[in-house]
């Protein structure tokens, strides 16, 4: 039996639980379990008993990288239940805030995680030593996204301005206009980045997949839309919990999502969105898709990096358009009167569809919260991918096998606990 553990010797960030166990007999996998720790379950319990107005301050704490996603799914759902129409301009400002998050999250993943992998560097630091200008440029683009989030959200880390009913404070037009030259510069870089991604050697792994994302006839979906899949399913947010099921899995404290009728897994995220919304791509985003070699339908998860570049481009183009037409919502927030009932909504987080449900009492107290993050919905598919992928690479060393398995998981950019570090691979060979 070979037991391999990748760990850190001197000091380490607190590690969460991210582990992959594979048991093999000959060339057959007899057991494969991906164990991932997820924080949202704690927050569901934490939200119960809180006033609805606290929700936009609590849910962003679930994730340091995509706090806006958690806020947006929550505020839209609660507004719908309460029959609140936020002031004119709120819709665009929320989309802009969310675009900031997409830019920041996607560029981070492409350059600091995926690119070193595909280029065979041990990490982004080594890539930065060899190609410092490339990494500096990437960090500068990422920073535009972070700064947009800070300008609209009111502070650097977790945005504090989004409220049920609108924003506590809306940015001034001139503060947003200051972003235009930076966004124009970032947009100019994107076709070159698409070429860079196309030039990277990647494993080929086309496999059967049902991809799921929001769809919207009028625009590339982010805050508003309905659900659809590449197998022809379509449903509304109200049906989310009947169309999909969350299963308890013995080996993981995370839940696994499947389609309720077929009990099959589904795939969320940038690649799913691009596939289902290719016609809504903006001009430079479309050019970047072509240059990155992304052809629709694209079922190879290793094209997720290309999809992130396409979406970052779309987010930059969209941000420019929104800022050019921006009029600050005035007043920034609508009056909100709670009512009892069930709030349901989903938005497109950087990693895929994020569904929230809140059962609310008459006085606005949250009775029960349910948060279904994209990562838990993708977990079953990650395992499926590994089951399909691993048999072809079993002849590799444990070290190489770990690296390849990490690449398969990394395609999803799983939103594990902010603490989780490397994949710990245990492989039993018999």
């Amino acid at each position: 039996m070979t037991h391999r553990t990748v760990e850190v010797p001197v000091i380490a960030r607190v590690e969460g639980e991210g582990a992959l166990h594979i048991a093999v007999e000959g060339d057959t996998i007899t057991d494969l379990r991906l164990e991932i720790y997820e924080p949202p379950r704690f927050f569901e319990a934490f939200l119960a008993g809180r006033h609805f107005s606290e929700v936009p301050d609590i849910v962003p704490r679930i994730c340091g990288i995509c706090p806006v996603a958690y806020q947006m799914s929550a505020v839209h759902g609660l507004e719908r239940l309460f029959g609140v129409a936020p002031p004119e301009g709120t819709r665009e400002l929320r989309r802009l805030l969310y675009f900031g998050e997409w830019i920041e999250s996607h560029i981070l993943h492409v350059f600091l995680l995926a690119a070193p992998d595909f280029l065979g560097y041990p990490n982004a630091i080594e890539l930065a030593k060899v190609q410092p200008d490339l990494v500096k440029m990437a960090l500068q683009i990422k920073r535009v996204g972070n700064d947009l989030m800070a300008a609209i959200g009111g502070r650097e880390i977790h945005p504090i301005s989004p409220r049920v009913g609108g924003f506590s404070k809306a940015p001034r037009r001139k503060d947003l206009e200051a972003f235009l030259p930076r966004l124009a510069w970032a947009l100019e870089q994107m076709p070159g980045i698409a070429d860079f991604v196309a030039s990277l050697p990647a494993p080929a792994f086309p496999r059967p997949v049902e991809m799921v994302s929001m769809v919207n006839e009028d625009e590339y979906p982010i805050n508003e839309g309905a659900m659809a899949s590449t197998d022809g399913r379509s449903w509304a947010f109200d049906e989310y919990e009947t169309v999909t099921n969350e299963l308890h899995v013995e080996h993981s404290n995370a839940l696994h999502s499947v389609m309720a009728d077929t009990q099959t897994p589904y795939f969320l995220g940038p690649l799913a969105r691009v596939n289902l919304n290719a016609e809504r791509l903006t001009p430079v985003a479309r050019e970047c898709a072509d240059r990155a070699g992304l052809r629709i339908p694209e079922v190879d998860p290793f094209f997720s990096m290309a999809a992130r570049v396409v979406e970052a481009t779309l987010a930059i183009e969209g941000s420019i358009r929104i800022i050019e037409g921006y009029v600050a919502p005035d007043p920034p927030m609508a009056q909100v009167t709670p009512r009892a009932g069930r709030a349901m909504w989903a938005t497109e987080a950087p990693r895929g569809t994020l569904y929230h449900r809140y059962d609310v009492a008459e006085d606005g107290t949250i009775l029960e919260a349910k948060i279904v993050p994209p990562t838990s919905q993708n977990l079953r598919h990650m395992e499926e991918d590994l089951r399909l992928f691993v048999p072809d690479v079993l002849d590799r060393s444990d070290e190489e096998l770990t690296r390849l398995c990490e690449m398969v998981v990394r395609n999803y950019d799983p939103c594990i606990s902010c603490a989780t570090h490397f994949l710990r691979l245990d492989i039993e060979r018999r």
Partner: protein
Amino acid sequence: MRRVVVVGCGNPDAGDDAVGILAVREARARLEAIPGVRVIEGAIGPDLSDVLAESDAAVLVDAIRTSGVGRDPGTLVRVEAGPDGLPVETGVPLSSHGFGVAEAVGLAAALGPSPQVVFLGVEVADVTVGRLLSSAVRERFPQLVRSVLDEASRLAAPA
């Protein structure tokens, strides 16, 4: 004036993982009284390299869990970053969440010129989401806060 940033890292909702954030929060008023010092609570790794690039020196305070060395919970660890960053083995993280403090320091060093970085770590006992600080970490907390203040004062003083 030297620009010194003091960053408390970690997850405020996960037991001892909050210790870095709580320490800089506790010291904030006294830190901000030192000319040139700015305080950030709760930064995550991916955003840290920007912050480091804009500073002459940094004090990073974070929870750690060390494998194989057998440190007691609550143990304070002080490490200065060298030209290659912190003495930690780094790899490609599994997710964006794995891009942590050590990665950020290493990246800033690779892109240089990198600031002088002092890392203050606290060995954790319990990082369960929803828990408070463990007694072992709480016991050493005042000493950690003093160390944060001492390091920041020292780094802010003209050479």
